[in-house]
């Protein structure tokens, strides 16, 4: 027992114990509506992990993660639309636009296996392709950001305008679809989805941990800090960037699929410009370059958003705008970064308890050092003497 409580061991198993405990207890404690919200926000944590990989570690600010998020959501929603249809039937909305036969690209989504793969492969391929075309030309920095944003707008326009293909601006509903004979919107199903989300979030976290811990992660950080130098050392930054952008795309796709089934609909709004920038702020508030910060930030900010929007909807944009400014100007490493860099003890030091510093005992006893220290802490008193 004592061995288990030793601080190093504690750090090892306590987080896992808390996660398991949370996953078991929360569904009992929280009402279904809140549980559903938590599940959604956790799934947003997965896309935040992807943003952290490409922005926090690699230094590429993508404002277009919504593309991959929505692609994952659409892939799953298309399968759910086709699921349990009788042969020859079409999803309901097609009749509104007088479409008689299923469009060709819908066909493969009848298969569950294809769907499960396409949820993350399609976003990854799109991201990889887009990334390759951009990185190949060494387009980076702000140019990259605004190109991804333009790509986002393009996808948004495309999905918004194509009623006959994917129901345009109305999106695809999933809450009324059935899977394994049970309604997706039902409380029992939502609880299962919550557990699935917890498992996948942990898995995504471990994947990112694994990616960033090794040489691959070192290369990413090198790209962030000095890309030309990495290139001169003989690495090919384009390949690394393309791969990591594709991984982030895949994560976004999985996240989008989970979010879709928990919120009951996928629509082009998932590709709206503000939503994708919000993803960045989740990571920034949580702490970029810290994986746990990305998940925490996503959950915290979204919970705050839903609480504020329920109480005072008009103030949310002010708060959000203020958060952008605050995080960039005052808290560049986010909450987790602030915590890890000794923020709390600095805060305590400000109100009067400076942290005990480890020095040599002989130094502490030296009268001159003591006088100097006093002078440093109280400069005005020193001048008078």
């Amino acid at each position, binding site marked *: 027992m004592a061995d288990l409580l030793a601080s190093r061991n504690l750090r090892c198993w306590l987080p896992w114990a808390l996660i398991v405990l949370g996953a078991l207890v929360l569904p009992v404690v929280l009402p279904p509506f809140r549980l559903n919200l938590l599940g959604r926000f956790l799934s947003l944590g997965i896309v935040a992990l992807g943003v952290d990989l490409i922005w926090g570690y690699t230094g590429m600010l993508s404002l277009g993660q919504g593309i991959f998020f929505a692609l994952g959501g659409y892939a799953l929603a298309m399968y759910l639309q086709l699921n349990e249809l009788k042969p020859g039937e079409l999803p309901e909305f097609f009749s509104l636009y007088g479409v008689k036969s299923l469009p060709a690209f819908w066909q493969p989504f009848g298969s569950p296996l294809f769907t499960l793969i396409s949820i993350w492969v399609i976003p990854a391929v799109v991201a990889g392709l887009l990334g390759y075309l951009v990185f190949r030309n060494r387009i980076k*920095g*702000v140019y990259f950001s605004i*190109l991804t944003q333009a790509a986002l*707008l393009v996808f948004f326009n495309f999905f918004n*305008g194509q009623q006959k293909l994917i129901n345009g601006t109305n999106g695809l509903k999933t809450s009324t679809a059935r899977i394994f004979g049970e309604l997706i919107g039902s409380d029992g199903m939502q609880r299962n989805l919550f557990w699935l989300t917890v498992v996948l979030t942990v898995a995504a976290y471990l994947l990112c941990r694994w990616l960033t811990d090794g040489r691959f992660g070192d290369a990413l950080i090198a790209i962030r800090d000095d890309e030309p130098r990495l290139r001169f050392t003989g690495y090919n930054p384009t390949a690394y960037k393309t791969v990591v952008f594709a991984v982030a795309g895949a994560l976004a796709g999985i996240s989008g699929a989970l979010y879709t089934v928990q919120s009951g609909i996928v629509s082009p709004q998932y590709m709206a410009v503000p939503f994708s920038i919000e993803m960045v702020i989740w990571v920034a508030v949580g702490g970029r370059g810290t994986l746990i910060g990305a998940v925490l930030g996503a959950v915290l900010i979204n919970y705050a958003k839903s609480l504020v929007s329920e109480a005072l909807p*008009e103030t949310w944009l*002010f708060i959000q*705008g203020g958060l952008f400014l605050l*995080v960039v100007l005052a808290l560049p490493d986010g909450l987790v970064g602030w915590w890890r860099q000794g923020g709390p003890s600095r805060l305590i030091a400000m*109100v009067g308890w400076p942290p005990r510093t480890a020095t040599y005992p002989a130094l502490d006893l030296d009268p001159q050092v003591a006088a100097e220290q006093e002078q440093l802490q109280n400069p005005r008193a020193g001048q008078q003497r």
Partner: protein
Amino acid sequence: MDLLYDTLFNGLAIGSVLVLAALGLAVVFGLMGVINMAHGELMMLGAYTTFVVQNIFKAVLPDALFPIYILVALPLAFAVSGLAGLLLEKTVIRRLYGRPLETLLATWGVSLILQQFVRSVSSAFAIGLVVAVVAGILVARFTPKAWWQQRWTPLLGTGSWIVTGLVGVAIASLLGEQRVFDQPWFSARNIDVTAPEWLRGSIDVGVVNMPAARLFIIALTVVALCLVNWFLQKSVWGMRIRAVTQNRTMSDCLGIPTQKVDALTFLIGSGLAGVAGVAVTLLGSVGPNLGGNYIVDCFMVVVLGGVGKLAGTVLAALGIGILSYVVGSGSLLLVWPAMPEGLNAVITFFATTSMAKVLVFALIVVFLQIRPAGLFPQKGRMVEA
């Protein structure tokens, strides 16, 4: 054939708005490497200034003066947006020098705040805001100097702003109980600006029928371009701006006040956004979301045009404007009825405003494969590898 000219003329008008809007963005980006996400909101401020000026002319001044209100609105809009931009530069952007991605996020936060501000500003709100800001500044002025050199000074600074902010909110909500003060100035709805008589008609030139408002916009653009070009090429400060754009460190060494140059450029760029806002009111009703409709197009202009020359911005803006109008309005089909079958289908597919954007973006990405730095790249050894 008239149809062709008509289409070209309309495309030219839309392109000129884009020139006006993107001009300021491009100059600022070339100088500071900063993308101002709040540029669209500065346009919106210009548009709302026009609205206010129009209402003042309607309500207070004699009817005979009404036709010239737009000429009064132009310099006023320039001043309002320019001052807002100057404030933004002094308070936010200056602190983030050398961190373009962070600047992008911070300015996005500012754009959110500006949008919501226009939606919910009322007399009570404005009074509360002014009280909070003035009180916050006064606290800093009239407290003992010694308080600002202590360990806990950061807490004092933050705390005093929080307290004055809360006081402002309290005053605003107290005043808000009076109907007179609670009335929002603009509300979230779109506003309509009535164009003066002389801009409502149209002029026939040969076979082409030109709406006067669009002619006015084109003329405005030409005048603005000439002025900016004259300023940059002939005036002393313009020369300084060009010098800093080319080599900031060297200019600094030679005694050019780079901070003043930054502030001045930002003021001019923002002011141009305000002028663009005036032009936009002539095209239709405007609302708090105005910025979002233009900002991505403006970014594309900057990416495509490069930052080396003004001509790049002009060419790119006109190109994007004309191409998206010509494709989007579907008038290619009417101009050239004998089009081959396959091409015909393609053109029809892209013949909506949103699908035209898809095509234009695809073309830009293809173009960037050939010339990654845009039409007129910045030249010289200082350009980053």
